[in-house]
């Protein structure tokens, strides 16, 4: 119990004052009567007949002291903290990310948040409205604004932990729009975030300082957790040594981190296709005492014969969040790629293409490439045809109709592509971060001296964008898959950067339809898997780690975006007559694995402090005391009227 106006407890000093007043004798009005005989008799009768005479002697004083004490308490405004809302509209943002499955609070953090939410629902009054938004990597409105408590209750009960990272931004934007709508209608509104705080910074969101948000941190700072925060499989390329058809070896890189205050001993178990490969005992040091940053421990598994399959790495340690103690990666068999390059000669391109022993490069002259691929618009016997600086003869009217094409510094003969003008020193402003072509590719140190300012077709995606327009685009339509780079490699420093060979490798994988290969098939939980089936595939089936499956029809874009990656594990793309493509969905997020609840975050230019009061309301009960005091006043009056002294 707390007091909102504790200073008023000073009124308690009036209690001894009352006693003092009682000690002073009552001044009575003198009155001459014929005889006191009957009055004495009457008073004696009353005394004899009244029970608790000893008590009654001071009953009035006791009652008055009680009334005074009650009133003193009442003006001090005592209150209890109870789960309650302030009425009006309440928007609950409930974190359902992986860290909410931590068992540092029983049964887990999400259940605690759900229990608090349900109490808030129970505290809803007539006319109050509630909206429930769950958020993990994405936000989802599980209950729209409703006055129906049952609906809100069912929505909250239906929340479950997703194995994904936390993203509050989207949920806040939804809540902000609901708040704005409510405030326009003049309704009282409040937003309550129930989370362990493993979300990104949201200070940049366009939210006003007076946004009615409160934050209820869930979790204990003493939560125990170790996690795998990185896992990667890399091909062990042996240039010049690997014979064609020979399987490359893979190296498995693992990084583990300890988020506890003390050192942790754990066991790292490597498995390939459910077959245990190796077990290692590792000691995970506590976070750096100065920076408090967890210290990573890296392990590399370098064994021959790691050719294809699903690698699973387990970190065995008793902690509060087992979800992040496991990770998967995929080693997939690659097939040889035959590429025809129509070029007058491009040193950088040829050098990079020859790096990968699985890539077989064939060269031709730009003027005679029809002889090799035919005039039908296909790729002939090649998997990919690359046009380097080719100017297509409009008289020939060659147009790609089927196959994968790479247009390097030339205007693709595809409807919609047109060169407007040449621009000098375009400044790169954006790249598609989640596209397979840009994986491990960093354009920050790339400068382009000259580029073509292009008009691009409707069905194209921009991979790299400069201030003058797109620099790299893709086009996927029907049976055509095309990549277009709209500048000359010799007019840029790109070939001299690490990003160039990476991009070429990605481009070959993407164009050959094997983009989901090797470690390229790793996806963060909650992210979209971009599945690109082969040209002859019309239907795919996605099989989840729990065995459930879902079928998708491949449309003209030849892309299937699968968003149901809320469980960790291996997802398989199954196509008829072809081996499965496996995608590994992992958490691998140090921020999510750090179970220490965030105490505060910035929003709308101010700090939002986490507090258990966020889902509580001050329940004042001074009026109950006032009612009791009034009752005792009545009782005192009654006693006074019945008193006989």
């Amino acid at each position, binding site marked *: 119990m707390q007091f909102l106006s504790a200073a008023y407890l000073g009124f308690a000093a009036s209690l001894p004052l009352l006693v003092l007043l009682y000690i002073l004798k009552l001044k009575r*009005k003198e*009155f*001459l009567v*014929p*005889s*006191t005989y009957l009055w*004495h008799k009457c*008073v004696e009768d009353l005394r004899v007949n009244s029970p608790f005479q000893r008590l009654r002697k001071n009953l009035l004083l006791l009652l008055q002291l009680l009334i005074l004490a009650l009133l003193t308490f009442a003006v001090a405004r005592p209150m209890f903290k109870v789960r309650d809302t302030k009425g009006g509209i309440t928007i609950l943002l409930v974190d359902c990310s992986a860290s909410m499955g931590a068992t540092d609070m029983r049964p887990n953090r999400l259940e605690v948040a759900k229990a608090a939410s349900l109490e808030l629902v129970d505290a809803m009054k007539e006319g109050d409205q509630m909206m429930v938004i769950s958020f993990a990597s994405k936000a989802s409105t599980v209950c729209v604004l409703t006055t129906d408590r049952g609906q809100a209750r069912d929505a909250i009960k239906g929340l479950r932990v997703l194995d994904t990272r936390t993203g509050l931004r989207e949920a806040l934007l939804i809540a902000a729009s609901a708040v704005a709508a409510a405030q326009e209608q003049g309704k009282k509104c409040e937003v309550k975030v129930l989370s362990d705080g493993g979300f990104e910074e949201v200070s940049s969101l366009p939210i006003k300082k007076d946004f009615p948000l409160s934050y209820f941190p869930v979790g204990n700072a003493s939560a125990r957790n170790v996690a795998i925060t990185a896992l990667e499989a890399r091909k062990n390329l042996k240039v010049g040594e690997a014979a064609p058809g020979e399987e490359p070896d893979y190296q498995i890189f693992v990084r583990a981190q300890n988020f506890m205050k003390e050192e942790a001993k754990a066991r790292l178990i490597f498995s390939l296709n459910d077959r245990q490969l190796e077990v290692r005992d590792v000691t995970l040091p506590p976070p750096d005492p100065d920076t408090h940053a967890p210290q990573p421990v890296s392990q590399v598994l370098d064994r021959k014969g790691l050719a294809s399959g699903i690698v699973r790495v387990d970190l065995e340690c008793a902690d509060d969040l087992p979800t992040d103690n496991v990770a998967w990666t995929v080693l997939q068999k690659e097939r040889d790629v035959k590429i025809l390059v129509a070029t007058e000669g491009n040193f950088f391109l040829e050098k990079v293409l020859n790096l990968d022993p699985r890539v077989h490069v064939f060269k031709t002259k730009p003027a005679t490439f029809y002889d090799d691929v035919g005039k039908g618009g296909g790729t002939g016997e090649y998997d990919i045809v690359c046009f380097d600086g080719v100017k297509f003869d409009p008289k020939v009217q060659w147009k790609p109709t089927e196959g994968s094409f790479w247009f390097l510094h030339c205007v693709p003969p595809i409807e919609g592509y047109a060169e407007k003008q040449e621009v000098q020193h375009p400044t790169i402003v954006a790249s598609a971060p989640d596209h397979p072509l840009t994986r491990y590719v960093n354009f920050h140190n790339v400068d382009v001296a000259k580029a073509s300012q292009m008009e691009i077709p409707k069905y194209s995606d921009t991979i790299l964008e400069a201030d003058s327009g797109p620099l790299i685009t893709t086009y996927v339509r029907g049976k055509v898959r095309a990549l277009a780079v709209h500048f000359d490699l010799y007019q840029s420093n790109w070939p001299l950067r690490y990003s160039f060979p990476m991009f070429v490798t990605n481009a070959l994988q993407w164009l050959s339809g094997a983009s989901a290969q090797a470690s390229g098939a790793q996806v963060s939980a909650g992210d979209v898997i971009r599945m690109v089936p082969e040209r002859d595939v019309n239907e795919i089936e996605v099989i989840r780690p729990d065995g459930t499956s879902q079928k998708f029809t491949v449309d003209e874009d030849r892309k299937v975006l699968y968003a149901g990656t809320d469980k960790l594990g291996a997802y398989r793309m199954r196509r008829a007559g072809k081996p499965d493509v496996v995608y590994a969905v992992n958490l691998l997020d140090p921020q999510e694995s750090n179970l220490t609840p965030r105490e505060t975050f910035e929003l709308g230019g101010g700090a939002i402090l986490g507090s258990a009061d966020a889902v509580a309301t001050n329940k004042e009960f001074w009026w109950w005391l006032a009612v009791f005091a009034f009752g005792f006043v009545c009782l005192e009056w009654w006693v006074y*009227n019945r008193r006989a002294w």
Partner: protein
Amino acid sequence: MPAASTLLDPDFMNRLEQLSLVSRKVFTGKIKGERRSKKRGVSVEFADYKNYTHGDDLRFLDWNIYGRLDKLFVKLFMEEEDLRVYVLLDTSRSMMFGEPTSKFDFARKVAAAIAYIGLCNLDRVSVRAFAGNLTDSFRPTRGKRQVWKLFDFMGAIQCDGTTSLRDAFKRFVLENRGKGIVVVVSDFLDKESFEDGLKYLLYNQMDVFCLHVLADEEVNPPYVGDLKMVDAEDGDVAEVSISASVMKAYQRTVNSFCNHLNTYCTKNGFNYLFTTSNVPFEQLVLNYLRKVGLTK
């Protein structure tokens, strides 16, 4: 002091002359009067016969009987004597209260009326004022002509002193051995208990009539608040905080007191009549006193 003439209205006095005091007992009087006595005497009303003996008055021999039976019988006649009427008037200070008519004024008028009825019927009327003891006295008097003296006496009485029925009645009984009607007009508010006083009247086998007079303010006190009540007689103090329940208790006490007095009177053969000082005086005398059998 009220003038003698204001005590009783002449018209009312004319009406009182029609009344007479009635005693339920037959007493022996002192002198010849108009009341039938226990004694045999010389009135015109035949009572009995007795055998003639020497010395009997020959005038009362019944010659007719002698003629028929040849025996001498003497005729006996009823004796008629006077009736003693004592009016005991409470003059303690508690009698001063009552609005608009004080208990004392009311009691004095009733006493005057009763005395007047007695005088008109040749009764020996005596009025005694009492408080702590017998104070003023109107000597036994007969005859209507004494009425002005009576009124003068009544008009001169002042209220003073503390009620002590025991002392007053004890002295009254010692001073007045003769039997007769005793009319006590009082509020009977005696802290030593009225029983101690009334028992003396019981001893002399008098025909006692208790007229209990209380003021309206005693029956339904109009008081409110925290009061320090001071007794008008002895200065005794009672601190009372008036409340509804206290008022109820007081009224219960008053009723109980009156009932107790009534029961005591009934048990001992006394007549009892309760009245308040605001009851119309004429109505009390003409109606209520007749109803309880004091007058006819």
